[in-house]
């Protein structure tokens, strides 16, 4: 049996982005001793990449805004597949969560009368995004980080130890959620720095690990986004919801190759940037879908007037939800009207004076100047779709953020599914993190304290199995020679990314996804032989070999669910099933492990690890349905839903 460092905590939060930190703050404030585990350094989480803002119906800029309007926009954006109760809670609580940040020291951009300024964004009817230039995510993460430090200072004054009630384990990776019978009993992980294993025993675990973008080749996501939380939940027996919905952000950089995929914030369009093809045409006017026809401008003149007079004009179609814009760009490039490096042109230089661009979009200016040698105040940017966000995720209870089927497991943020339906609106993710991060922390703390004296026990056998699984890549070389030579994890990762990008990307076809599933099965077999050199101390090859398990699991979920859903909706576009099908509106697809008892070693590598089930969604509450016009609902809802 391996000797592993063990500690006891009340709540363990996996992930230190916006949702994880907000959960940790809440759990600690509710009296739970809370540990946070993150793969990077504290304060470096992917949330810093969020640029545009936090959507919250505070009505500071346009007093017509309120939570009902925000709720409507969110449901429309998600094509009515959203877990409506989440969308409701989200719209109601977001303003409180933003204001709270101010009391912790956040400094948002201001309106003339000293309130929080709000900006326009795709899919939002009113200016709604609280922002700080184009570095809102950084402000969010720093504020939460500093709030945690202030709680630690409080604890230091009382106990003489900064980390007595709230501790951040940075640069650590969790590889397994441990269970005592049905319930959660803790987590198993390793320190990246030393390679040492550790176990944190806790009755409640909050998963807040973010997304899965690193399974795709062109992505705006960082290396951390390997779907760890999704896989941890699956392996712990919790199902994943609607994994086919992957958002491709319409505007990522396309050149130079080494930065391909890096995000170009939507604020560029919100602040007046326009999309043109190689013929100089503002092509978005040709791509307004029927459901949005009466909400968007029909001429360039009307669209341009909207920036100054939003009450009497309709918004330009550049501000359609992200899925629509991404598809439009994809279609333009395919039709041969793309830019030299395979994107389209996004231009602000002819729309705003250079000074204004530098003030409102400082990091975009910086990013293009430094990385592509392009001066966005003088020339157009080249942009194209990039894998950005996964709407699918761990199936959770709307109010408590508790994962289904595993008592003690909670999930918040991108890793949780349901909130955004089939497509997320820009700005809704940061508010999602805060609203459901807080809820997850709150309910995890309550669960942990109600749980009382009988803390779940950590099973030594599980710990040993987890340790053996984590050490596999070191023994791969000498292990089973009959299987063939050890595989390079970097090569496997590249092949996986290429497969997902080409075969389960922005436009999907049945035969391609079938090919993807075959390729995934092959990669799964080879991944078992992934071998690494060197020792356990800060060894990136080893880390990647372990992350591959997660990416392969999640990729299979995406591919299987995408193959199953024979319609196009939001972040899921089927070339062979082009339209939105109302009969799919109330269908959720749930992914679970085919072999929930065993470890992966026991799974047949070829047959696949994921089983899909269909589930009817809960009918939308009548008072919420009443917020919409009947004519609009007809476009989305099935007949029987309308008359219930």
């Amino acid at each position, binding site marked *: 049996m391996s000797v592993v460092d063990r500690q006891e905590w009340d709540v363990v939060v996996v992930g230190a982005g916006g949702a994880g930190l907000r959960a940790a703050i809440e759990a600690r404030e509710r009296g739970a001793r809370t540990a946070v585990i993150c793969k*990077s*350094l504290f304060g*470096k*989480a*992917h949330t*810093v*990449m969020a640029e545009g803002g936090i959507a919250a119906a*505070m009505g500071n800029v346009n007093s017509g805004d309120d939570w009902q309007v925000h709720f409507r926009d969110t449901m429309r954006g998600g094509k009515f597949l959203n877990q409506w109760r989440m969308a409701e809670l989200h719209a109601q609580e977001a*303003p409180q969560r933003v*204001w*709270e940040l*101010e*009391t*912790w*020291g956040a*400094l948002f*951009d*201001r309106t003339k009368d*000293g*309130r929080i300024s709000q900006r326009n964004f795709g899919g939002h009817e009113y200016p709604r995004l609280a922002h*700080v*230039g184009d*570095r809102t995510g*950084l*402000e969010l993460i*720093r504020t939460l980080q500093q*709030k945690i*430090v*202030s709680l*630690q200072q409080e604890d*230091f004054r009382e106990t003489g130890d*900064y980390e007595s009630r709230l501790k951040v384990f940075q640069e650590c990776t969790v590889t397994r959620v441990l269970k005592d019978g049905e319930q959660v009993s803790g987590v198993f992980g390793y320190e990246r*720095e030393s390679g040492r294993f550790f176990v944190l025993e806790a009755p409640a675990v909050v998963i807040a690990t973010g997304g899965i973008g690193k399974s795709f080749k062109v992505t705006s996501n*960082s*290396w*951390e986004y390997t779907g760890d939380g999704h896989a941890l939940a699956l392996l712990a027996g919790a199902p994943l919801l609607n994994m086919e919905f992957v958002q491709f952000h319409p505007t990522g950089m396309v*050149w*130079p*190759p*080494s*930065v391909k995929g*890096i*995000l170009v914030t939507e604020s560029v369009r919100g602040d007046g940037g326009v999309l043109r093809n190689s013929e100089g045409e503002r092509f978005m006017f040709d791509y307004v879908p029927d459901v949005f026809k009466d909400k968007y401008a029909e001429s360039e003149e009307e669209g341009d007037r909207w920036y100054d007079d939003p009450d009497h004009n309709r918004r330009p179609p550049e501000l359609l939800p992200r899925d629509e814009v991404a598809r439009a760009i994809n279609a333009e490039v395919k039709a041969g009207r793309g830019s030299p490096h395979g994107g389209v042109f996004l231009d602000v230089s002819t729309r705003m004076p250079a000074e204004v661009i530098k003030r409102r979009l400082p*990091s975009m200016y*910086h*990013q293009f100047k*430094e*990385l*592509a040698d392009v001066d966005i105040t003088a020339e157009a940017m080249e942009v194209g779709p990039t894998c950005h966000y996964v709407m699918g995720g761990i199936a959770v209870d709307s109010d408590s953020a508790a994962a289904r089927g595993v008592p003690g497991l909670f999930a918040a943020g991108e890793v949780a599914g349901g909130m955004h339906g089939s497509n997320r609106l820009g700005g809704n993710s940061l508010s999602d993190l805060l609203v459901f991060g807080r809820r997850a922390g709150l309910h995890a703390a309550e669960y942990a304290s109600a749980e009382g004296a009988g803390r779940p026990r950590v099973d030594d056998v599980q710990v040993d199995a987890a340790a053996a699984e984590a050490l596999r890549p070191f023994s791969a070389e000498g292990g089973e020679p009959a299987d063939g030579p050890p595989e*390079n994890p*970097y*090569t496997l990762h590249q092949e996986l990314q290429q497969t997902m990008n080409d075969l389960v990307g922005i436009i999907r076809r049945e035969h391609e996804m079938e090919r993807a599933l075959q390729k995934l099965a092959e990669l799964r077999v080879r991944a078992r032989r992934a071998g*690494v*050199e060197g*020792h356990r*101390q*800060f*060894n*990136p090859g*080893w880390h990647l070999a372990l992350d591959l398990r997660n990416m392969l699991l999640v990729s299979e979920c995406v591919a299987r669910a995408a193959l199953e859903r024979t319609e196009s909706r939001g972040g899921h576009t089927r070339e062979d099933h082009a339209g939105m099908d109302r009969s799919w509106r109330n269908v959720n697809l749930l992914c679970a492990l085919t072999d929930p008892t065993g470890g992966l070693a026991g799974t047949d590598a070829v047959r696949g690890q994921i089983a899909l089930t269909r589930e009817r969604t809960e009918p939308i509450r009548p008072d919420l349905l009443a917020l919409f016009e009947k004519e609009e609902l007809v476009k989305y809802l099935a007949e029987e839903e309308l008359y219930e």
Partner: protein
Amino acid sequence: MSSYEARFKVWRGDVRGGGLEDFAVEVNDGEVVLDIIHRLQATQTPDLAVRWNCKAGKCGSCSAEINGRPRLLCMTRMSVFGRDETITVTPLRAFPVIRDLVTDVGFNYAKARQVPSFVAPEGVGPGEYRMMQEDVDRSQEFRKCIECFLCQDTCHVVRDHEENKPAFAGPRFLMRVAELDMHPLDAAEETGLDRKGTAQDEHGLGYCNITKCCTEVCPEGIRITDNALIPLKERAVDRKYDPLVWLGSKIRRR
């Protein structure tokens, strides 16, 4: 433009020792130094340790020293170097090394904890905060900080004098003191906390000799010295070297 083979020297080792190792590696159009390090990992040295995250200059993880200058690996384009130049990549020098290019930056997190946090004003609830843009501009500039700790690394106060570490918070955290002191609603003073005085007494502002290396390395272009450190020094002067204020505080104490 085409690809070419560049010569690299990368420091490899750990606390027990180490040295520069030579590599020849392919470089393509538009790449940054971090791309080359990744190529080394994928093709030659799978266990080469490097810390990175966003690869877009926003998270501040991939700090290292390139040709002796503290920089972000992801924001240093290969095109700034000549093709025949040997590029030397070493870990941050002011901090203990863990392995290869990864250093232990715990010093910075310890210092962060020593700066008292924002103090919310009494009687102003969430949603009631009113601040004018011109009043938040200064602190907002400092909040652009991505905590890459390049300023902490380059500052000779601790880079060249390990013994000064306990007494000196470093540019990043002196700037944090300035940020809070300039925050229009920070109520520290009402609770008896004098940020201006403590900057000198507890965070070692006096060690700074304003030689501006922190400003030079800042990847966010924050004017740390001119806008944070010097104003903070002036604020400390208000407290401690202004004879009238000094006299006043003496009298009041009696």
